[in-house]
């Protein structure tokens, strides 16, 4: 967000956190292919409802 003042240490901590989260999410992201773009989350909810 433009204009938010973050210290150098704070920015480094943010970057480290994001790097860690992205690494953990990578196996799932690797499965999202362009042609597999879902029709929508609510559509998935409807298909999986009892």
């Amino acid at each position: 967000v433009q204009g938010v003042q973050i210290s150098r240490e704070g920015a480094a901590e943010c970057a480290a956190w994001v790097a860690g989260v992205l690494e953990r999410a990578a196996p799932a992201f690797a499965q999202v292919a362009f042609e597999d773009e879902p029709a929508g989350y609510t559509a998935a909810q409807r298909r999986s409802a009892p």
Partner: protein
Amino acid sequence: MTEAEILELSCAELARAIAARRVTAVQAMEAALARAAAVQPRLNCFLRVDADAALDAARLADREIARGHARGPLHGVPMAHKDMYHRAGIASSWGGRIGPGRPAPATASALERLDSAGAIQFGVLNMAECAFGPTGHNYHYGHCRNAWDPERITGGSSSGSGTTVAARANFAALGSDTGGSIRLPATFCGTAGVKPTYGRVSRAGAMPLSYSMDTVGPLARTVEDCALILGVLAGEDPRDPTADPRAVPDYMAALGRPVAGLAIGRPRQYYYQGCDAEIVALMDASLEAFRRLGARVIEVDLPEMDAWNAAGSMIISAEAAALHGNWLRSRPQDYSPQVRARLESGLAVPAASYIDSLRLRGPALASFSRAVFSKVDVLHAPVVSFQTPTIAETDVGGGPKMAQLLAQVTRLTRPANYLGVPALSVQAGFTRAGMPVGMQLLGRPFGEATLFALGHAFQGATDFHRRAPKL
């Protein structure tokens, strides 16, 4: 009925007693107010109590009953709620200094529906600042304390909701669950709590944290109360386009459904990784109780839970940072260091990763449903993998230990938010230290009724929910 006897009643029992004129709404309100005043110095759980207005409303409720008119299934039941549900003409605190800062122009749909059902709000409750903290610490209003041991955390962010209900100072409370904020205080404080399916309950007039993950639900002493209150809350709302239009099942009728033959999944992966041995034993004991009730327990393999948890974390962080952007620019000093640091982390989430996290949700739910719901009716799991820590042990502020600690606390709850599935937390027993431990039951989207049937049957076979903390 004595004051102590009134306070031991569940919402459903109290509503029946008031309707039958065995207890008056004024007696119930006076009991709740007296108990609230008694526990507040030890638990720091109420942010405001509106005694005079609540007693006036209780007197009106009694006059209505005398005329033969009950507003609804919660007529005369006292409740206090997490201070993030807007009431017209009153400014909510959102648990901190940041917030609307002016009286709300309209009442939250959830409060309107509880009002219509006859519930009487008598106060607002402590909560994590901006609902962005899973432990119950609050650096503005003081930390909320656990009714079972005031040195230990309540869990958050619905900290006051959990501890007031456990302490018999409140019959039920609204919480909100974006990454576990209903189920965590429910398990740490020993109450029931339900995180509904995403879209099941309107969020109009509730403080937003993450549009894609926020859910509204109750904490109460019994599963029956959760079913009763969710039935009041759920349904379409023109004020919230994400509120789902499908019909709301009769959750109270579902409580009587037989559970024999239902299949309960015990996960082979993720949920028991590094789990405390006492908690594992309590989970296994609860599964044995379900077997005795006639349910089948089947081990199931889970897909990429850790990756989905990470994706959920990115969504919450990015959306919260965007929502708070103006205040982060103009009033950064008004956040506690922890909340500010967490919001700043969200600024660093790449836009493409945020979008990938969102578009992965549909396939993730489909994959989870194939793995779990093609084999079982519900997934049974612990809510947390560790025993209730002390407030001091988890007082990490915004320091370097923060991210790791908070990730550990929400590790087992956040996947249900990412997947959007409903999850019911129910008391499963107590540790040797005397602290309550909860289990969670995850169901199919909009499958709350099955969760309630199982949870209610479990409470019929156990007495954990009847035990009260000695304060």
